[in-house]
């Protein structure tokens, strides 16, 4: 006779680096219902942003997420620049693209590693993370820190990258690509990996749109959408074609990210080749006034900031909408009908970033 059990998945679980809890109702080994419980890493960043100076907030929003910190700062600065009518110098826009794409590269490497670990392929996890250290070295060399690089500021970027460091970056990326060729080959073509990922956690295109999925999860279901197409920073000159797969399963989501790694490598190279020789920042004058929305593409999907200012030193309201929050609803839809053993793989396939989600 079929037996119903409720299993708490998390908040502390070996495959999850961050705390989120899913209450799984099982019928034998099959998931019937998944209920997410969040709030373990809620800090209250949005409220704190109202209390701090608008220039101090750059450091606060960077610490919403340690994996894509630069992109959070970029989104915030971009919104404020629009409110204050600042024109960012072209070199700064290009440097922003370079650092954003490097962050995307490291985030996807991180995810590919954790994902491999989720289905028990530990040596593949180690391979991806070995490559990732090359990117961390680039961050340390160009910005002075490994994780939170604080390179973005209102009106441009805080520091320039010297020609020598640009050359070294290109050299490192060459080594990285060679290593990535080998490890991504395993991720895409290995028999056991395919057994664990093909056809698991399927999300159809219409459901993906209806549930508001974002980023690679949306694109793996065949929907062509990428916030980089809006042409922020220097993406108006460095055109980006969205990477689209149609199957909508875990395998397709991994494939989208693997192809995005190649796209990012290409973007960094093109940005370095076309780097203009101008100033790197303009000085902000006056105080922000008005309301605006700022959109950028994070490794996990579209990030959206709403800023309301009233001409004082402090913001009236800062609202952050992160891609992982958008992807929790599709996740809850994907889980029913899958086996308990596949739950870690499916959960990881949306690339959950809980600290973004809960702020």
């Amino acid at each position: 006779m079929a037996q119903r059990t409720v299993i708490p998945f998390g908040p502390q679980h070996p495959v999850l680096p961050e705390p989120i809890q899913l209450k799984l109702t099982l019928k034998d080994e099959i998931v019937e219902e998944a209920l997410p419980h969040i709030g373990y890493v809620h800090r209250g960043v949005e409220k704190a942003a109202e209390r701090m100076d608008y220039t101090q907030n750059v450091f606060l929003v960077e610490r919403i997420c340690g994996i894509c910190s630069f992109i959070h700062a970029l989104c915030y600065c971009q919104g404020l620049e629009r409110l204050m009518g600042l024109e960012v110098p072209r070199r700064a826009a290009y440097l922003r693209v370079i650092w954003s794409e490097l962050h995307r590269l490291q985030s996807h490497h991180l995810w590919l590693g954790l994902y491999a670990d989720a289905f028990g392929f530990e040596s593949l996890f180690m391979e991806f993370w070995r490559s990732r250290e090359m990117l961390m070295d680039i961050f340390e060399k160009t910005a002075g820190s490994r994780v939170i690089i604080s390179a973005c500021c209102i009106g441009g970027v805080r520091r320039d990258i010297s020609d020598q460091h640009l050359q070294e970056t290109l050299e490192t990326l060459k080594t990285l690509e060679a290593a990535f060729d080998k490890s991504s080959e395993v991720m895409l073509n290995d028999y056991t990996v395919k057994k664990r990922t093909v056809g698991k956690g399927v999300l159809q295109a219409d459901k993906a749109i209806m549930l508001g999925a974002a980023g690679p999860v949306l694109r793996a279901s065949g929907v062509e959408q990428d916030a980089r197409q809006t042409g922020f920073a220097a993406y108006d000159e460095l055109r980006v074609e969205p990477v689209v797969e149609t199957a909508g399963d875990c395998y397709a989501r991994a494939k989208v990210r693997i192809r995005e790694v190649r796209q990012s490598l290409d973007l960094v190279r093109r940005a370095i080749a076309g780097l203009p020789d101008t100033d790197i920042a303009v000085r902000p004058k006056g105080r922000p006034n008005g309301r605006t929305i700022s959109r950028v593409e994070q490794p996990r999907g579209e990030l959206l900031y709403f800023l309301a200012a009233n001409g004082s030193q402090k913001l009236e309201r800062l609202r952050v909408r992160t891609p992982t929050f958008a992807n929790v609803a599709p996740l809850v839809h994907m889980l029913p009908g899958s086996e308990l053993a596949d739950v870690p793989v499916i959960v990881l396939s949306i690339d959950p970033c809980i600290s973004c989600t809960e702020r």
Partner: protein
Amino acid sequence: MGLIDIARSKSPWILHFDAGACNGCDIEILACLTPVYDVERFGIINIGNPKHADVLLVTGTVNKRSARVLRNLYDQMPDPKAVVAIGACALSGGVFHECYNVLGGVDSVLPVDVYVPGCAPKPEAIIEGVVMALGKMQEREHARKRGAA
């Protein structure tokens, strides 16, 4: 030093819990385990089960909801055990110290043995923190044995 003491100091198993971090410190802890730093060669293993762990690594600020989970994990760990707080947030609350949902650093809930500062601390610093925690754990154990004898 008995056999168990030797084993513990040569092969400490760590348990990692994110009590409200931005992820930065968490990925640096994971980076310690990967080929460039490779703490496994010293016998350090990241384990998911608190009942098998010797050292608890805590990252991030403690909030009202995670405090209970953190306390539970600590209580489930067998003695002797040590707690290492990693990153500015775990030390004092860091940039989030004034947020409404933040109780403060890890020491507002648990006794902390080693504080590793930085935002985020480098993997080398984290490894050093674990090594220092082992020393403290051993000292405590010796003092307890002397007291018993």
